[in-house]
């Protein structure tokens, strides 16, 4: 793909503002035109990214897109082939400079925590402190509290902890020396779904409490959207879009990003005056695309169902996946035969084979048809 991933996309304010931002502050991260290849395979092809200080940026992408390599370059475990990496305005990689990882003051939380198995929790947490600080040990309880753990675990060994506890200790260990930046490499992917959310929230709270800048690498859309202040979507070694979770979800740079960050119903229609009529009824389109043929992105939760009213398009319920809190309803539009999925609250779920009427609420994003 080309260097500009947003050729036919709606307006993305934050990506434009990224390059116009004031000079980087103390704890920010700036990545400029970074490339990296392993042998013949090009893993990163010109990455530009700014992580504002005291915020969390999620790098979201499918496995093999190069997101972990980007993280390792920021940490200093790998050297970029070209481009620059700045931490707090200081060049740490590129332009003939390379600062060793141990001098970057960057906290690193790898997958599955990687707690030192030969050290107990307290010794793990104080590993990065100086000898005197280590012996006094008073930071341990403070840090355990910070990540939401009982101080009693300080004497346990890693194998005696649950996965979620291990991740929290790994974060406490990374936070202990007071780093300017924390790098999290898929830290929750090894946890059960139930633990994932709670651990993620505890991590975000600890980072906010210490005003630490963080970069989170993940392939989990809901994790990125729910935890981060800014989401950078990566694809094939390039950044496809940077924006707030809301922007990335509601106004994706292109349909590829749209389908990666969430379920999508794509509708072809003719645009005129910010509106379109389609086989799903009238749609209101976000600003930014000219009149004429377009492809429109409808999120399943925008499709509303009514049983009796005369408004909306008639459809038959094909089947229902009931999740309790909500349900995914697969529908066939009677007029066109098109299959769509609607996401409805679990309170009122239609029966299979029943007839309903559907309508689309809220504005939808529009894309040029050639994409």
């Amino acid at each position, binding site marked *: 793909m080309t260097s500009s991933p947003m050729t036919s996309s709606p307006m993305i304010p934050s990506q434009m503002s990224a390059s116009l931002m004031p000079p980087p502050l103390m704890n920010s991260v700036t990545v400029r035109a970074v490339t990296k290849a392993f042998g013949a395979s090009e893993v990163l092809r010109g990455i530009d990214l700014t992580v504002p200080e005291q915020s969390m940026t999620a790098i979201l992408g499918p496995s093999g897109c190069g997101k972990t390599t980007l993280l390792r370059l920021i940490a200093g475990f790998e*050297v970029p082939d070209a481009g620059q990496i700045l931490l707090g305005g200081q060049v740490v990689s590129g332009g003939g400079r390379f600062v*060793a*990882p141990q001098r*970057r003051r960057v*906290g*690193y939380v*790898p997958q599955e925590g*990687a707690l030192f198995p030969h050290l107990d929790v307290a010794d793990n947490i104080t590993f990065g402190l100086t000898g005197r600080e280590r012996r006094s040990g008073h930071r341990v309880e403070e840090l355990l509290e910070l990540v939401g753990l009982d101080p009693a675990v300080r004497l346990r060994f890693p194998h005696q902890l649950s996965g979620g506890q291990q991740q929290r200790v790994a974060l406490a260990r*990374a936070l*202990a020396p007071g780093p300017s930046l924390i790098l999290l490499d898929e830290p929750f992917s090894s946890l059960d779904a139930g633990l994932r959310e709670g651990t993620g929230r505890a991590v975000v709270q600890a980072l906010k409490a210490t005003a630490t800048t963080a970069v989170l690498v993940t392939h989990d859309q809901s994790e990125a959207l729910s935890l981060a202040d800014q989401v950078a979507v990566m694809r094939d070694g390039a950044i496809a879009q940077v924006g707030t979770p809301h922007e990335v979800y509601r106004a994706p740079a292109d349909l590829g990003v749209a389908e990666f960050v969430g379920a999508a119903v794509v509708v072809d229609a003719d645009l005129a005056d910010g509106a379109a009529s389609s086989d799903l009824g009238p749609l209101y389109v976000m600003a930014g695309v000219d009149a004429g043929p377009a492809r429109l992105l409808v999120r399943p939760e925008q499709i509303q169902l009514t049983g009796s009213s005369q408004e909306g398009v008639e459809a038959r319920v094909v089947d229902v996946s009931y999740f309790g809190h909500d349900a995914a309803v697969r529908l066939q539009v009677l007029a066109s035969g098109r299959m769509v999925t609607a996401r409805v609250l679990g309170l009122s779920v239609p029966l299979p084979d029943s007839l309903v009427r559907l309508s689309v609420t809220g504005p939808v994003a529009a894309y040029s048809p050639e994409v």
Partner: protein
Amino acid sequence: MGGSRATYPRLLLLLSAAIVLVAMIPLFFVVGYVVSTGWDEAVTLIWRPRVGELFRNTGLLVTGCVGLTAVLGTGAAWLVERTTLPGRRVWNVLLVAPLAVPAFVNSFGWVSLTARVEGYAGALLIVSLSYYPLVFLPVAAMLRGLDPALEETAAALGHSPWRTFIRVVLPQLRPALLGGTLIVALHVLAEFGALQLLRFPTFTTAIYDLYRSSFNGPAANMLAGVLLLSCLLLLTLELRLRGHHRYSRLGGGSARTIPRRRLGRATAPCLLAVGGLTALALGVPLGSLTYWLATGSSTSFPIGDLARTTATSLGLGVAGAILAMALAFPIAWLCVRRRGRLTILMERLTYFGNAVPGIVVALALVTVSIRFAPAVYQTLVLLVLAYAIMFLPRAMVSIRAALDQAPPVFDEVARALGSGPLETLRRVTLPLVAPGLGAGTALVFLAVVTELTATLLLAPIGTRTLATQFWGNSSSIAYGAAAPYAALMVILSAPVTLLLTRNRWRSITV
């Protein structure tokens, strides 16, 4: 710094290549000898009735031992891992314990009681009793790791327990079973002491006799070539199986406990079976040793002599173990941390050292040292080098297992926390690998202390080890005098053998 993962540290690579070349001296020697002898001469040396007889003997013994150890090892492993056999923990240790008794001590135990064990049947029984733990260990580990759902599925599909075992369990055990029995075959091919005592001539004993009588004659070298070729063939087979082996242990360490088969009325016969096996493999040699220690007419306890010999063996064991570990470390480190075509090649080459019997190593070092470095001939340096070459593969396996305990992610976390490379080594890597390195050193030490063949050929005149003193006495039928040395070897081996009953070290073949 280069940063790319594919680059090798140049110095380490050169060092490792040099070590690999040293480890391959026996191979170079045999190939060089065969080539310089020429085809016609080689054929006349090999194509003799005597060689045919040796070939038949060796072949019969290897196939017999492979079959017997497969049955004994698998049966015992199944009883211990999959049934309600009472006292499983004790049996687990007792069934591995024969590894602490060198095969030549085992056959001493038998032959000093009755001469009826001489010949094929006796050799088959005694050698199998010594080596069945090499099958027991991998098969037991495999049985422990098998997914019980497979057997449950077979049962649900209407298979009887016996049919399930044949159709589901056994095919999955195949890699462990074949791997284990091939290691047995390699050991039988290289076995000298036990077969010499049992008067059953094979290639190895014949080479030794030829060497002793004609001193480094061409016939001995040529037989060594045939022996090495057989070993290499077996090892290639083993290597191919090992490739599959890794894939077949997907999802090892499942958390679910495996349901054990209730033995019920079969309990008593099964107890009798493992009890009988233990009595034969462990009870007879230990009982015989005790008997000779207590009552043997030639038993006298030359305390000073015993102490000196023990000290020599300990010293050689420590020196051999340290040298082997030191030589193996750079190669193993490269293999783990800089995996590439070159390092894999080096690993394979050192692995082939497993196939080189002690007698071939010894012959090679004698010839090569006389020719190129006469100063080291008849010195302890040459003997320790022989140990290091013989046990380099074993050291490699231990170091690799140890390094696996310290994956690079720990280094990275430590670096991110502000530790430099040396501090990381001191505070993270060394504490993590130290137990593994210690266990590896102990395993090589055990192998050196109980090594007989190369020691007999290479020990400088006047150097007495436990193994050579035992050998000198037992082959002159001074059983009582031989017993204390054998007992000391068993006592020294026992704690290290116990290591093998622990899960982590099961994979290391002895």
